[in-house]
């Protein structure tokens, strides 16, 4: 038997997480599973007792949490950064604290379809978010704090909420401006450094939901038990932002948002340009899920893939100045030396190359495969690995109809 908030898994390396039970219940199975992204990861199956009894550690005592405990609390909360390349907050803060020049960037750009986004939780829970920001500032002592906001009225509203001693930077919200690597380049002037860039925390880019979870941990001792998920898309009856416990099946989120409408083509986890399409609606909410998008068939019907015509659109479009056309050719030949020379590791996983290709080639997929091949090749020569996030699946086994 476990209680809500009880720690049920320990990190095994510098890049892995603490995991806490999202609700009270009985652990019925531990093992491994395949994520929708096709990678194997540890899995715990929890059967809830529907009483949601909290663990004594996370009961709100009404008193302030002393500052000495903040670092320990934050780094053991199990919080992940959001985006196509999620890293654990603990690892990133550790590296940030050790930097000489520390710049903190809060990313408040609107990421959602229909104008709804997780940044709306800034208006729902402003004190929690401010506490989280305060805690990180006190613990890490950044010399400069910036906030990226939309250059619109919506953005100006946010500036009223976060505080006065922050420098606000209005950005015209064009994808991929909100991706951490692009943000880093805007602020620091360094060239884009690919998926590892955010781990190096130069500058540290955090978004609103991360501050929210940090604030919950500091004020209420509450570890990561739920995720703020934007459930949207034209195939849903009532798109909205939901706060769902880890392990909730995606099916329940869709039902909460009014269910499916019309002829549905794809159900996508996270981003429309980089996310994964799923067929199993039992896929659970995880610490890295921030969006579920349902697209009608008309928008996402499969299109014929034809040979590359070397038009150069992918080269012009890539924010990291890579050449996806050559990366694809080198991958066909399995030419790893050329892939290294083409700086595949600088890819920030934005997906624009595939979006723009007139021949409908799945360029983003190829670049991802190229990165994996290079990583595997390196792992063969330098042992060491990155741990994956644990997935907790709650509910009665197999059957989710209520």
């Amino acid at each position, binding site marked *: 038997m476990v209680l809500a908030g009880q720690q049920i898994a320990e990190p095994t390396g510098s890049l892995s997480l603490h995991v806490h039970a999202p609700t009270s219940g009985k652990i019925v199975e531990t093992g491994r599973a395949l994520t929708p992204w096709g990678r194997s990861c540890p899995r715990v199956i929890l059967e809830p007792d529907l009483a949601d009894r909290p663990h004594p550690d996370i009961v709100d005592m009404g008193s302030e949490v002393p500052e000495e405990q903040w670092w320990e609390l934050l780094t053991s909360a199990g919080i992940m950064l959001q985006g196509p390349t999620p890293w654990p907050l603990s690892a990133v803060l550790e590296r940030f604290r050790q930097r000489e020049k520390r710049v903190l960037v809060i990313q408040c750009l609107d990421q959602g379809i229909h104008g709804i986004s997780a940044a709306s939780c800034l208006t729902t829970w402003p004190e929690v978010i401010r506490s989280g920001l305060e805690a990180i500032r006190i613990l890490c002592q950044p010399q400069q704090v910036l906030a990226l906001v939309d250059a619109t009225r919506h953005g100006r509203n946010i500036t009223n909420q976060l505080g006065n001693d922050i420098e606000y930077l209005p950005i015209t919200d064009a994808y991929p401006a909100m991706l951490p690597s692009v943000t880093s380049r805007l602020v620091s002037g360094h060239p884009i450094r690919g998926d590892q860039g955010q781990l190096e925390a130069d500058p540290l880019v955090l978004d609103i939901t991360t501050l929210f979870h940090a604030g919950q941990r500091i004020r209420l001792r509450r570890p990561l038990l739920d995720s703020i998920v934007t459930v949207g898309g034209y195939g849903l*009856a009532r798109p909205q932002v939901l706060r769902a416990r880890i392990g909730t099946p995606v*099916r329940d989120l*869709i*039902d909460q948002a*009014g*269910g*499916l409408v019309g002829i*549905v*083509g*794809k*159900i*996508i986890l996270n*981003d*429309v*340009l*980089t*996310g*994964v*399409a*799923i*067929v199993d609606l039992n896929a659970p909410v995880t610490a890295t899920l921030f969006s579920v*998008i349902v*697209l009608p*068939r008309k*928008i*996402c*019907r*499969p*299109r014929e893939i*034809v*040979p*590359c*015509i*070397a*038009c*150069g*659109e992918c*080269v*012009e479009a890539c924010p990291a100045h890579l*050449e996806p*056309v*050559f990366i694809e050719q080198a991958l066909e030949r399995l*030419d790893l*030396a*050329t892939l290294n020379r083409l700086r595949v590791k600088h890819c920030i996983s934005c*997906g624009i190359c*595939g*979006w*723009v290709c*007139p*021949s*409908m080639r*799945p360029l*983003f*997929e190829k670049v991802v495969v190229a990165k994996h091949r290079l990583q595997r090749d390196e792992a063969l020569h330098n042992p060491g690995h990155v741990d994956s996030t644990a997935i907790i699946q709650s509910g009665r086994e197999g059957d989710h*109809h209520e």
Partner: protein
Amino acid sequence: MSDPGSRLELILSPPPHIHSPLNRDRMFHEVLLALTPTLLIVTGAFGIGWLIRLVAVTVGALLAGWLSDRILRQDFNPLEPAQLVTVTLLSLSLPPLFPPIMATLAAFLAVFFGRNVFGGIGRNTFNPAMFGWAAVALLFPGMLNRGSLPVTPFGSDWLSGDLPMTAATPLVHSATSLLTRVTRLDGGTPAELSLLAVLLGGGWLLYRGIVRWQIPFAVFTGALLGGLVLRLPLINPTAAFSDLFCGALPFAAFFIATDPVSSPVRPSARLVYGLAIGVLTVLLRLHTSLPEGVAFAVLTANLLTPLLDNPNPGGHR
């Protein structure tokens, strides 16, 4: 709300899950659209003569496509937009009194050997239309000089009659003559007929983003450079400009050199490619007896494309 009894058919494919409106067919349709002013003026000026050549070229292309289907086992779609563009460009590059049977041969060679033998669309090294032109230039020397005069409604007041490379036409004397230069109709192949139509079409392609500025800019710059070096501008100062808007160069700059498959991918490489075409055109116009240097200039630059894309072909160091 989701009915447990109904079946949900979901698509499982890799990202991106939405796509930009640009697709390959649309790109080539835009090129055909940009060719419309030229096609209209050409049909008006050359009339039935040109239409016969167009039909002859189409027949050749269809023949090549059919043969590719049988021998090379390539799928053959007669209405493939890239094919339509090649056919149109080739027919605009051949003189109006060119024998139809040779036009058919040119088209057949262009499509079969210029494109399909390499693997079809997206895999050719050479520009197919220019390959066809060059093939007939070599096989039937002198035939391409035939027939410069348009014969219908526009009347002979509008005709310059000269073959472009012999007349060192000043670029601008005054505003009036610039207007005259742009709107007059030149003799030669249909591609050379109306500078205005070509500029309108080229402007449309630039505006739509189908063609980026690098190649047309570099071609004109290369021609200017070639003119400065090769045409003795100390003696006749405006000679340097004489190649810029003469002959098929403007047409080639916007429609032929910009063929995506045979031109390099990187913007910087494209600048070098365009410069090469411009300079080589001037060189070939001056020092060979070819009626127009552009075709071989483009083909030579096509030979440079793999190197411009990958300066380290062996990949060892």
